[in-house]
């Protein structure tokens, strides 16, 4: 596919526990959290891809692999035809300017001892984005872009509210003029009314700057609102990918169905009193066999325990990893 800009190909990532000397001597097996278990996903130029899932599904780890904050243990991340693990030196820095990340926590993602001007000018200088004389003008432009007042430049992060800090984070990412923005839970730490402001800003910037956005979040309503396509993750695997409309109207994976049913509707006249998914998330240290969701799935049958389901096409652009062709909504 020519319009694929960034893709994860069978990416896996483990986080090993520390082993004591005794464990090594005894030859105890290395225990690890299997955060990603073979994730394949394409991000197309100009689209917003939503990645949704509950805590522990690996969505944040995947986001960090996409910008190479983590190196993958297996598989590869390809940007514009190049495996990003092979980049070094100037090429790696160039990649960093093309694929930028915005972080979840507005309080820890900014250096508390640097003013907004220092934060932005550092990004501009290190990557030689602008000649020295134009840096102040560019900072003013960036502040304008994220709708912060000009006098914000010389203040420290603690002078700002959570929503404003996220704008500073966005401005920092935009300073290096990226093509792709990976937003990890961009608004989940913010109040509802402020969330809407930041979401609006992101939508507007994407149009204006023709950005490709990977929007990682646990909030289904937000993901639905902002994404062209959505990928659903469970225990380090992508279980379903589809255009947003299709995914929310006709989900094909039982986990997606449960997730959608569990999310409370903002309409008090459409209440249900049925529990959407039984049980809890299995341990990511000892993963279930076969389909990872079989321990909670209402449709599980023997094949789900033994065989790992692959992502198979359901409709144009719609893939799901379920042995059943069309599981009925319970």
């Amino acid at each position: 596919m020519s319009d694929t800009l960034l893709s994860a190909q069978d990416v896996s990532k483990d986080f090993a526990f520390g082993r004591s000397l005794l464990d090594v001597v005894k030859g105890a097996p290395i225990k690890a959290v299997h955060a990603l278990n073979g994730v394949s996903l394409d991000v197309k130029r100009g689209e917003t891809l939503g990645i949704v899932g509950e805590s522990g599904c690996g969505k944040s780890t995947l986001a960090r692999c996409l910008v190479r904050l983590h190196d993958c243990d297996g598989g590869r991340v390809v940007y514009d035809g190049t495996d990003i693990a092979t980049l070094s030196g100037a090429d790696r820095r160039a990649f960093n300017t093309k694929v930028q990340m915005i972080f979840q926590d507005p309080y820890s993602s900014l250096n508390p001892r640097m003013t907004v001007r220092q934060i932005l000018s550092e990004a501009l200088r290190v990557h030689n984005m602008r000649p020295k004389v134009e840096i102040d003008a560019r900072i003013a432009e960036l502040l304008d872009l994220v709708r912060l007042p000009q006098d914000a430049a010389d203040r420290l992060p603690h002078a700002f509210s959570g929503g404003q800090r996220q704008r500073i984070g966005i401005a920092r990412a935009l300073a290096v003029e990226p093509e792709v923005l990976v937003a990890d839970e961009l608004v989940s730490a913010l109040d509802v009314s402020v969330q809407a402001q930041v979401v609006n800003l992101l939508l507007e910037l994407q149009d204006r700057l023709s950005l490709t956005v990977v929007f990682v979040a646990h909030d289904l309503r937000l993901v639905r609102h902002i994404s062209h396509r959505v990928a659903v993750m469970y225990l380090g695997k992508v279980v379903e990918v589809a255009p947003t409309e299709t995914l929310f109207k006709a989900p094909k994976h039982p986990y997606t169905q449960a997730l959608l049913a569990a999310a409370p509707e903002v309409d008090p006249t459409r209440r249900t009193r049925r529990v959407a998914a039984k049980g809890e998330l299995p341990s990511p240290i000892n993963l279930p066999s076969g389909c990872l969701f079989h321990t909670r799935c209402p449709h599980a049958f023997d094949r789900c325990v033994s065989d790992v389901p692959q992502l198979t096409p359901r409709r144009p652009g719609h893939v799901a990893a379920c042995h059943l062709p069309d599981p009925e909504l319970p």
Partner: protein
Amino acid sequence: MTEPILSVRNLTATFGQGASALRAVNEVSFDVMPGEVLGLVGESGSGKSVTLRSLLRLLPVGGHVGGSVSWHGKDIVRMTDAELRAVRGGQISMIFQEPMTALNPVLPVRVQIEENLRAHTQLDRKGRNARAKELMDLVGIPDSARRLDEFPHQFSGGMRQRVMIAIALASDPKLLLADEPTTALDVTIQDQILNLILDLRDELAMSVVLVTHDLGVVAATCDRMAVMYAGRIVEEGDVTQVFAQPRHAYTRGLLGSIPQAGTERSMLLSIDGTPPGLAAIPQGCAFNPRCDFATDICRRTRPHLTGDGHRAACHNSDAVIAAGSPVKKALSHV
């Protein structure tokens, strides 16, 4: 007309003394009816959690509760410590957002449940034992006999919240106060816990006051709701009524801030600015600097809650009503 089981009048919560005193809760009045789920909604700093804690005078040192909270003919605000202890964790129980910090990490769950049973029931040792297991079954913890002897850290987040609820139910409360009970949980687990709370409400004929910032949770669980802003209730009414026709500009803005099906990739109806700090609450209507409907009177005079059943404290209620509900709009769009 049934009588409310809890009647709150002019409740205030103040921190500090004299000129530097801050009012986190200001002249809040509401009733809780038998068997109903009342939602207290607001953003951070709105005073919703402090309101809930004030009902049982559970404020940190330096906090002072004023007004009245009448419970079975008695005013909790004026109760002696001994009377208060009988009510706390007895007739009125409370559950919290983060069960890991609300539970004692060094005691097995059994001890923590039985502790409450000893304080609020006449059961003997054997009876307490049996009741503890019963409670664990009631809140849906599988393998309850074995899990009673485990420690809080051995439970998952959802299971811990169930344990919290089991402890809260030990004393057969008539009112459950829930402070963001599902905020720390995943959506499928949140769904389980909310359904559990509703089931228990039905089975045990309790009332519930649920504090949350999530309007989705309110829509899914509450009968009535009160929206708080800068320490005051700005709108109160039946959940269906409020969602269908908000009368306060802030409520309308909140509803519009939530993405709705059918409006994908459109601009959300956001509210400008951020909620005010307690030390700098604006004159007149506290919401006026962020309000699209604000007029001169909003900057001068604080509006009072008016209306019958569905009440709102907004000078321009009519304009807000005329603008319609953002939720309704989205629904008609589908």
